[in-house]
């Protein structure tokens, strides 16, 4: 039977982190950029929880940190979405490549 060890979790989180970073760099859709940022934060969470499970079973610092990361990640995402709505009101598109033309106020 295949045995899941710490190394596997670390590998998974490293791959997820790289995927998220790649997504931030290459994707043109702004929503996709924000989702990629969440990928990176959650990759870090996997790392924290895995380390906490294998090394620190008494005080569980890693689990606590993971909850903090989740909460603050949501705050960042909320502000990101608010700005995205403003961008959409101005340009009618959420494309990072799109020309930044100021149109009439969207009402």
């Amino acid at each position, binding site marked *: 039977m295949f045995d899941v*060890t710490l190394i596997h979790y670390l590998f998974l989180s490293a791959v997820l982190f790289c995927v998220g970073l790649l997504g931030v760099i290459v994707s043109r859709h702004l929503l996709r950029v924000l989702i990629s940022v969440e990928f990176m*934060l959650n990759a*870090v969470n996997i790392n924290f929880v895995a*380390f906490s499970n294998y090394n620190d079973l008494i005080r569980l610092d890693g689990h606590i*940190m993971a909850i903090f990361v989740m909460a603050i990640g949501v705050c*960042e995402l909320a502000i990101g979405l608010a700005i995205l709505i403003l*961008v959409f009101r101005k340009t009618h598109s959420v494309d990072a490549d799109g020309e930044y033309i100021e149109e009439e106020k969207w009402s």
Partner: protein
Amino acid sequence: MEFAADIKNLMMPEIILFVGALLLCFIGILTDKAYKRVFSIVVLMLGLSFLMCLQLDTDTVSMAFGGSFLISKFTVFFKELILAGTISTIFLSDKYIKQNQKSVAEFYMLLFVAALGGMILVSSRDFITMFVALETLSISSYILSGFIKEKNSQEATLKYLVTGCVASAVILYGVSLLYGMSGSLRFDVIFAAIKSASMFNIAALSGTLVISGLCFKLATIPFYNWAPDVYEKSPLAVSAFLSTVSKVAGFGIIIRLVSELFNGIWILYLVLGLIALVSMAIGNLLGLCEENVKRLMAYSSIAHAGYILAVLALGSTLSLSSAVFYIITYLLMNFAAWSCLEVLDNGDGVTTESLKGLAYKRPVLAFCMVSAFASLAGLPIFVGFFSKFYLFQAIVFAGFLLYPFLCFVLLNSLIALYYYFKVIRAMFDEQESEQTVFWSKRLAVVLVFSTVMVLLTGIFSSPVITYSQQIAQSQMPAVIQYEAIKGTYFDNPRPISVR
């Protein structure tokens, strides 16, 4: 009971800011008109917080909350710098407040929360505290930078936000590796684990990740590209805040991490030096062909952060004291320059074109501006010369192997002369262009105060240098003090066990 005593004895400055932020939040909900009264409340709160900082006992190192919050001479000094910068920002924001008389209380509240985050950041001794404080500072800065909806600042704000999120993810990845290595998130435990388990490589890797993520706050190399856009598009007071207070907080935590946590990891000093060299080169080269003075200030602040990091990479007491002196003078020069720009800004930003003939029409303002920019360039008499001189001295005393490094830094400050002088030369141009100026008492206070300080500190710099030496000496032996006062929470580090 211990909790309440900690708050009463050690955290009063932060608590006052927190209460002030809550109060401003309520005022913002109740009324949208009373901006004159709000100003006095805000200044009173910040002044009270500053006084509380001054009366903290800093001769001994003390900790709160089971060792996750540190009060020492160094951290209290950085808190005082942050508070002074915030007070100056509030005086500087007077023009913005008078022109857009809505959401005033919210604007001040966000400044309060950002200052609170910075103050907790410099005295954190635990990665959870550090991360939460860092994000408190960052998130309120994101909102502040997009505060003007009409000005197309969304693009800049979004860039700032995405860069900031990536930077914090990079920091967290480094922290998670440190946590896996030591089994704790406390600085002292991790330091002991690095020393005892000889995990040099992994500490160097994760230290590189943490430091380069924190460089987002300093707007240096891996994460610098937000700075020009954000400085250009956000309200000028916010640009001043981002280029001073938020940078001071970033330097505070980087100095503390390098001297307390990653002490003795030479690869990290190499990384710091590399970041410093590349970012000062990039800041100066991109600044060469810039016409917009607000963007020029952004490039200049990238280069200045590079100088300070360059001297931090040496890791001696002399270099640390020169970095602290440079930070103080950087704060003064930047506020002098930003307040001149705020007087001249007519909403579309200040360009070198629009400055033409200023010296003949408004000699006093031109004098303030010349002293600020000459000081940023590092000319004698002004304070910028002495801070640069002290910085070069620290590099020279570090040994002759670093002479190429010194040559590179010197070359960079020569390049920087060009674009500072472009601004100064435009003011003495024969052609005259129309300028609209805005004067108010509060703006004049910060302008006069920072210009006088730039001149006075230039002439009488030795007390400030002595003070920064004391600060540096109190930080360097911190590791030794740590060993003596290890808290009850200390437990032996456990190395990684792979099942």
